[in-house]
């Protein structure tokens, strides 16, 4: 959380996160470039520039695969949530590595010609009507363009400037970029420059991304299709037994397919707020009350329970909802109140503090 823009708000977690990412990238490139060649069964080594391009290109592919796995993994197992925290740095590093891949390709395959190397990417292969032989480099160019846009707009300045919904939609472009990269690899490297291990690894990566997303989607779908009873007026929804809401945690209620409410319990007090964090639409209901505030599990943004406002000097605010207790049951008013609206928490007399 920040009230002013700085390039990076460093903290210990980000240092450790980035160190692990750099160690991973270093291990990949170091072993690919310097160790693996000693074990190759080749008459003569692959040209140094082409080999480096392969190293950087495959590294980018696997980093993108990992980036796309983090989301569904965190949906399926909360222990993976810390991997989300600094995912933007991972994305930026991936984009930078993609430029190294391109630099090696342009400096070798597209060099030594009277035709400008940048122009040549677009004009030397125009077999757009073919599947095999399709100018797969163009797919890579579009993927790189998307990765660049995402990297440049990854800063919170752009998040606030574009607003979370638009920013999130823009950054869903990572899926298009991944699809383009998969096609780029499938129609290029896998057709001639790859051994059986690479073909298997690429196939397994795509299958992993698809499987994790399907599992996470199934879990979300099952949750969203749970039916909650409405009262006769159609404005109050049965939210269950208040004792089922764990202390300092929330129960998430799905009002519609795209609207969820988090009912938090802080001791004997119960409050309902939007499940969507104002920062990056993180699932607040999977957060926890820390220092008296609901804390988002993604990036630690905090909100007061009673009015959905971040504590000063922060200015984020989210919608609140009204609750009532009737015959020992908790009822949620499904009409969202304007963000930041104060709602007196309800007190459940049957719950002891800390239970």
């Amino acid at each position, binding site marked *: *959380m920040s009230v002013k823009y700085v390039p990076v708000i460093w*903290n210990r*977690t*980000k240092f450790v996160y980035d160190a*692990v990412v750099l*160690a*991973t990238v270093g*291990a*990949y490139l*170091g*072993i*690919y470039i310097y160790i*693996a*060649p000693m074990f*190759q069964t*080749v*008459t*003569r*080594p*692959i*040209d140094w520039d*082409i*080999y480096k391009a*392969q*190293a950087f290109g495959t590294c980018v592919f*696997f980093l993108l695969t*990992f980036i796309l796995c983090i989301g569904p993994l965190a949906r399926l197992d909360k222990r993976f*949530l*810390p*991997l989300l925290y*600094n995912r933007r740095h991972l994305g930026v590093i991936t984009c930078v590595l993609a430029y190294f891949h391109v630099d090696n390709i342009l400096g*070798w*395959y*597209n*060099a*030594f*010609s*009277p035709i400008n190397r940048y122009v*040549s990417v677009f004009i*030397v*292969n*125009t077999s757009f009507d*073919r599947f*095999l*032989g399709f100018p797969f480099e163009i797919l890579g160019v579009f993927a790189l363009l998307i990765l660049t846009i995402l990297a440049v707009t990854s800063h919170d300045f752009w998040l606030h400037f574009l607003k979370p919904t638009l920013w999130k939609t823009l950054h869903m472009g990572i899926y298009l970029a991944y699809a383009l990269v998969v096609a780029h690899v499938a129609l*290029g490297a896998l*057709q*001639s*420059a*790859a*051994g*059986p*291990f*690479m073909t298997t*690894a690429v196939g397994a990566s795509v299958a992993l991304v698809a499987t994790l997303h399907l599992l996470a989607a199934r879990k979300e779908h099952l949750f969203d299709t749970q039916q909650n009873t409405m009262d006769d007026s159609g404005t109050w929804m049965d939210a269950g037994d208040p004792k089922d809401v764990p202390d300092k*945690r929330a129960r998430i209620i799905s009002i519609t397919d795209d609207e969820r409410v988090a009912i938090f319990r802080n001791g004997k007090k119960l409050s309902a707020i939007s499940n969507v964090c104002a920062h990056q639409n993180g699932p607040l209901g999977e957060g926890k009350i*820390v220092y008296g505030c609901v*804390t988002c*599990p993604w990036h*630690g943004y905090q909100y007061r329970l009673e009015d959905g406002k971040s504590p000063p000097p922060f200015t984020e605010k989210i919608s609140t909802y009204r609750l009532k207790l009737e015959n020992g049951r908790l009822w949620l008013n499904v009409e969202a109140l304007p963000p930041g609206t104060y709602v007196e928490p309800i007190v459940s007399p049957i719950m002891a503090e800390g239970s």
Partner: protein
Amino acid sequence: MAKKKPDPFFIGWAKKPPKSLQGFLFLISAILVGAAAGVAFGIGSSVPDPGDARFAWGAGYQTFTGYVDAKPYPLLRLPAGEDGRDKPHAMLISGIGKRGMQQLAGPLDGQPVDAGGILLKRGDLDMLQVGGKVSLRAAENPVQNFTPAPAEHLGKWRLTGEICDGKCYNGAMRPGVGLAHKACANLCIIGGIPPVFVTSTPLMGSEFFVLADENGEPLTAEVEDWVALLISLEGEVERRDDLMIFKVNLDSAKQL
């Protein structure tokens, strides 16, 4: 009193992750680094063999005296003994980088020449990258008693293989074949490097054919659409010394 179940909650800006998560995060980090190392080793150590094509830098600057044929693409016709071979030899020539030799070879077509440059070698195949002091010029001391033999016509054939550029295949790049190399091959062909057809199975001992159109002229830009694909082509085969020329109509090309 029942012991309270731990409820770990990670906050990025907190000093440390919860103790109960630290082991898990360490394990994930170790798996990540280990998987990266394993995958890198697996892919890097199993790359396909690009062959023994290479620039023969170790042989230094080479000069040859023979005749030059400008069509379909410039090649040297060398007498026996000139290249350490016991029979006359036809050798493709190229300029430096992705440039052909048409401009220099055209006016010298059929004449005795001196050629100097760096050899590219792939097994018995070779190509001379012409440049340096000698470059390609009218011969100062033509080889006596040598005239290149006329082309030998070997009939009509349908062959299966891949179109590459003659320079990268001969060693300018490793690997110099395949779809990943298509853009490079097209740039070479656009620059005047001869397109060649590398067949899946040898014809009369040769898997390497310089391509030409049906009239023995350079191919049109249409050839670029067929580069790096597994195709079959039909045309007349002729032999000049030890080099095969495949005179094709690209309309006969079929992708396999």
